[in-house]
């Protein structure tokens, strides 16, 4: 591989960093780096999943009672919105690989719209809960749920969906940055690493929600 490039010699492309021996090494490094980062993300969320597991095991009845305060229709809709955004994200990478920049940008925009829709739905869910006092921890004032310490359910709910929501917002920021770069023609079949690693991140955010949805909205 490297010989190949050395023959070409002269000017490496703008995105190429000098300390790598070839472009493939650079791309593979970036992907490996992102995977290691995703590993840290999984353990970061993992702490909250652990808290969830323990409190659900301690207070199974309270969890069942408290989950009725959540609307599975909204959660389900959000699941579908996020899955669609994942599809368009994956398709966008494919477009850049096939040198279809316009289509790639379009698909990124759709991904961004889906993410925004997700946040809007989340906003309606949150504002309803704020309104009736289903707030985390000591701000909890709702009185309609039986069982031991229902405020803990809402603490964990807000922490997990809140942390997830922050990840969606960060992802939206990165996608906006990608769209701007893509419009300038930075990405093509030779170099689309930023889109690809953002895609990995975005799919993980989707994956986390795939678990959050049944764990909070579908407790039976």
């Amino acid at each position: 591989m490297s010989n190949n490039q050395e023959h070409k010699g002269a000017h490496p492309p703008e995105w190429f960093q000098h300390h790598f021996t070839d472009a493939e090494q650079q791309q593979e490094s970036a992907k490996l780096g992102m995977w290691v980062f995703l590993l840290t993300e999984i353990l970061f969320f993992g702490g909250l999943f652990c808290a969830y597991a323990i409190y659900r095991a301690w207070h199974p009845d309270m969890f069942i009672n408290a989950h009725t305060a959540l609307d599975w229709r909204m959660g389900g809709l959000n699941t579908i919105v996020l899955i669609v955004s994942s599809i368009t994200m994956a398709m966008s990478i494919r477009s850049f690989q096939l040198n279809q920049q316009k289509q790639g940008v379009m698909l990124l925009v759709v991904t961004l719209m889906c993410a925004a829709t997700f946040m809007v739905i989340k906003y309606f869910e949150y504002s309803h809960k704020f309104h009736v006092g289903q707030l985390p921890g000591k701000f909890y004032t709702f009185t309609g749920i039986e069982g031991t310490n229902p405020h803990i359910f809402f603490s964990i709910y807000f922490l997990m969906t809140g942390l997830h929501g922050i990840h969606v917002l960060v992802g939206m920021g990165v996608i906006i940055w990608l769209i701007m770069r893509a419009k300038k023609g930075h990405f093509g079949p030779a170099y689309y690493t930023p889109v690809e690693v953002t895609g990995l991140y975005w799919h993980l955010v989707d994956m986390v929600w795939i678990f959050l949805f049944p764990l909070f909205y579908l407790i039976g």
Partner: protein
Amino acid sequence: MSQLTDKYSHHAHILPLKVYLGIGGTLIFMTLVTVAVAQVHLGPFNLLVALAIAVFKAILVGLFFMHLKYDNKLFAVIFVSSLAFLGIFISITLFDTLRRGDIYQEVGMPIKANSNMYDSLRVAPAHGASGHEGATDKATESVTSGDDSSGAKATGHEGTGNDSGGAKDTGHVATGVESPKSGH
């Protein structure tokens, strides 16, 4: 540049559009399935089924959207090991939290089940329906022990030394510092 392109097209696995749409369709379908199953009451199996479907969906996302099926196997190793360590964390912690009462039952659960804030909050009509007038009512405390007499201890003027079976008593060992209001 064209040579670079050749190099990449060789290594990048470009999946046909059908795969992405098919996987996406399956994911949406499985979302509907998990919602439908949740409406049926299966007891503890609800959780298992819901988790099994979620795991299946996550595997699809990982294999196809995240290209684990085609990419360097190292990535899959990283992904699986992160789940393994998470599993260690959760399962060993559960070995503690679920087994504390192994030798002595009274050690296994909190003395006062509900947190202090429920002393002043009207909670769930089922417990001690009326009489939630002031902070002195401690009926909510007796959720675990079922010892209603502890409610009377709220004023704190009774002796405390005469109950040898301390585990039964819920009134006076509660975290006193954080609940200065009770009793007045």
